[in-house]
């Protein structure tokens, strides 16, 4: 197979940071080449160098034997290098079709050819297995998973030779991931080279041909077979073996903290009841769009409910986030960057923002804030150990720790976690699982929404499964299996297909 992309001794320095210190990568036409590495290892920097968003300090990037123009994303795209970034860079106000063809819109004379645009957009979405997404919908109205599909369609709308995907599966559910893999396989069969970045090691065997591993800005393995044992891959990524991914499961106390009765908010949540006990990690599984996130938002007071009751310690819970927080709730939302953090603020300020009253006497004690924030951040082993660091510059896992530290500082009693380990590397995941479990042991009731079935099975005391806005199953965490969860999560008619693919 001919080499489509060659990266030789690539170095990229930012002021004060050597993000890449000699990276080699070799991608053949028609292969799916997985790129592995812990957060901060330099994966994102590498792909930004390839796509032209960053200008490398030194080293070579050859695309089909020729150097790519440096620092020129449009030029790279024109040559057939398409990149789908982790942060979905779509414009909310555009329609799906407009987003897909942004900057290369089909035209009829000087005017946009909307017919052609919609037709081709629909064709691309159908090819991706998502004909249900309307080309005329505004991006704003789409859920993250659907936005991902639109991003992929956008990459496919040019004649792509090299497709770089930065954690495309992070926000997709099992069914959608399989559809995505189908598309990736088809593209590879057409001779496209695919660089696939994921934290989910199981995916690498499912989709990849070869693997390149990055650690601390260097390649620790380049082009090794995707069949390399998981333990070896993890070792290459983190430099040491992860002792135990999942800690022992906490057990629930008798005391019911949160009692959700018959909550309804159409169309997402039709009828949801649950009891969250002190000291347990309660999982909430289901497909993307089954109403899990919406249910959390209703509990937290972010969205109104049509019907139903929510009690905390037997008393009705206030219907606003500030009321919920005052009563002892905390939420770590699905999208850390857009919903949880003020990215231009320091970690310390992000931690204390929900507890400012305690530092106001009546003027804020900045030193007191900083000290308290650092104490919580240290408990969670946040790196770097610097409460003044701007959170934008932290890795995803550490950003999540900042969010958790915020609620630790408040001693909250009920913690709602929405996809707590999304975009987080294996080592940090293990840390987060331990944190979550420790919190439960300390008597906190933790409600975890996750699309990673393995994680639910790994850490939860009990698992509830949502389907189409209803809670359809309750499973004991000790005996739960991923297959069982998935069987409940998908509608009965679809289940045989999906089960086969997963097993």
């Amino acid at each position, binding site marked *: 197979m001919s080499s489509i992309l060659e990266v030789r001794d690539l170095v990229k320095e930012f002021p004060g940071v050597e993000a890449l210190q000699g990276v080699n990568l070799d991608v053949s036409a028609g292969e799916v080449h997985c790129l592995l590495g812990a957060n901060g290892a330099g994966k994102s920097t590498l792909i930004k160098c390839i796509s032209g968003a960053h200008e490398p300090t030194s080293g070579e990037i050859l695309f089909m034997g020729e150097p790519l123009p440096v620092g020129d994303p449009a030029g790279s795209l024109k040559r057939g290098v398409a990149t789908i970034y982790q942060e979905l860079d779509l414009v909310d106000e555009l329609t799906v079709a407009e987003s897909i063809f942004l900057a290369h819109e089909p035209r009829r004379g000087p005017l946009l050819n909307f017919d052609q645009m919609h037709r081709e957009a629909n064709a691309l979405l159908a090819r991706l297995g998502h004909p249900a997404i309307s080309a005329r919908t505004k991006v704003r109205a789409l859920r993250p998973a659907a936005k991902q599909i639109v991003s992929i369609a956008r990459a496919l709308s040019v004649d792509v030779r090299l497709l770089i995907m930065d954690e495309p599966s992070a926000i997709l559910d099992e069914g959608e991931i399989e559809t995505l893999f189908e598309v990736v396989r088809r593209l590879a069969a057409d001779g496209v080279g695919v660089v696939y970045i994921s934290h989910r090691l199981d995916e690498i065997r499912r989709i990849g041909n070869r693997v390149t591993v990055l*650690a601390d800005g260097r390649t620790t393995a380049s082009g090794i077979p995707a069949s390399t044992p998981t333990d070896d891959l993890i070792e290459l990524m983190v430099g040491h073996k992860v002792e135990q991914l999942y800690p022992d499961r906490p057990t629930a106390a008798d005391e019911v903290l949160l009692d959700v009765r018959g909550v309804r908010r159409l169309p997402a949540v039709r009828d949801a009841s649950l009891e969250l006990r002190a000291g347990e990690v309660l999982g909430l599984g289901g497909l993307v769009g089954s109403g899990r996130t919406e249910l959390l938002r209703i509990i937290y007071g972010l969205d109104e409910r049509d019907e139903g009751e929510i009690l905390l310690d037997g008393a009705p819970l206030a219907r606003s986030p500030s009321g*919920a927080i005052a009563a002892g709730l905390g939420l770590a939302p699905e999208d850390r960057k857009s919903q949880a953090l003020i*990215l231009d603020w320091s970690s310390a300020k992000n931690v204390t923002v929900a507890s400012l009253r305690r530092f106001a006497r009546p003027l*804020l004690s900045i030193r007191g804030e900083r000290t308290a924030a650092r104490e919580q951040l240290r408990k969670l082993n946040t790196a*770097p150990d*610097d409460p003044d660091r*701007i959170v934008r*510059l932290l890795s995803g896992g550490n950003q999540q720790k900042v969010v958790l530290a915020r609620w630790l500082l408040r001693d909250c009693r009920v913690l709602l976690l929405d996809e707590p380990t999304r975009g987080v590397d294996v080592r940090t995941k293990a840390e987060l699982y331990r944190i979550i479990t420790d919190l439960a042991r300390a008597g906190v009731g933790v409600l975890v929404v996750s699309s990673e079935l393995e994680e639910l099975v790994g850490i939860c005391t009990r698992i509830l499964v949502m389907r189409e806005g209803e809670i359809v199953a309750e499973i004991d965490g000790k005996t739960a299996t991923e297959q069982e969860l998935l069987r409940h999560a998908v509608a009965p008619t679809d289940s045989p297909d999906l089960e086969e693919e997963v097993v």
Partner: protein
Amino acid sequence: MTTSRAEPTGVSRSAGFVGRLKQLQFQEYALVVVVILLFVAGAILKPDTFPTWDNVRNMLTQASVIGVLAMGMTFVIATAGIDLSVGSMVAAAGMFGGVMLGDTGTSSLLFIVAALAFATALGTVNAISIAYGRVVPFIATLAMFSIARGIALLLNDKLPVSLLDLNGGNFGEPAVFSLLWFGTGRILGIPVSVYVFLAITVGAWVLLNRTRYGRHVVSVGGNREAARIAGVPVRRIIFSVYVLMGALAGVATVLLCARLGSASPVSGNLYELDAIGAVVIGGTSLAGGRASIVGTFLGVLTFALIFSLMTQLNLSTEVQQVTKGLIVLGAVLLQRPEARY
């Protein structure tokens, strides 16, 4: 600052927060230099008239009106909002106060209370339409820009109201706490209006940097959804900054009318541009989430110096207007978001 820092593997310390801090402070330091340079330039170009106590006093007095507005504007912009109506509100509040006095009114307190109340009321209208009517701040305040100016013109049939009756018909020796005292009175040789401006600056700094309220204001501009999820009463905060802006427009009205000895329906023209300009060159982000009272203060001084200098060099107001616009444009260009990595 002797904290030990564990150095996590592979993460070298970047410019990070320090860089950010320096960047913000850089703009402040740079402005200090600009202010000094402008003063030196003035002293060289007009050695007889520029570096004089009289001129400095004059500049500061004039700057105090814009300065008070700019402090309010800093809060508004910190929430990623904007208020285009401040100049019109100043005119309307002044006219309202003047009309309330009637023909023979001699109560400074009545004028001051009326002007403050009216400006605050107009600000509250902005606040309601933006926070509860969910009108975009640009449009809501653009509407108020027109409404308040119209009210100012309507109140006394387009005619100004003289306020000199409050002081026996002339500018001489105003009594302490009378209206004109705020415009022409002095304490230790420094105009009262300058004290008012400085007091409001200090108050604004404390409010923004050392109170829960100030932190909430900046959080709303930094990331509204995240602020809401962190329990910040977002709508109330947004409401409050426009009310605050109105109240400060009232203060600016008092200072302006006190200095001029009259209320005019055409006063305050384009004051919003001066106030926004001072805030922006001071380093407060128009996108919200980053605000600097010190920067705004220095921005106000920079503007005051430039215009005093240009006036003394006999440059026409038209030239001054072009310059003003160019400075604001330049400041925004300098503020472009840096490339992320």
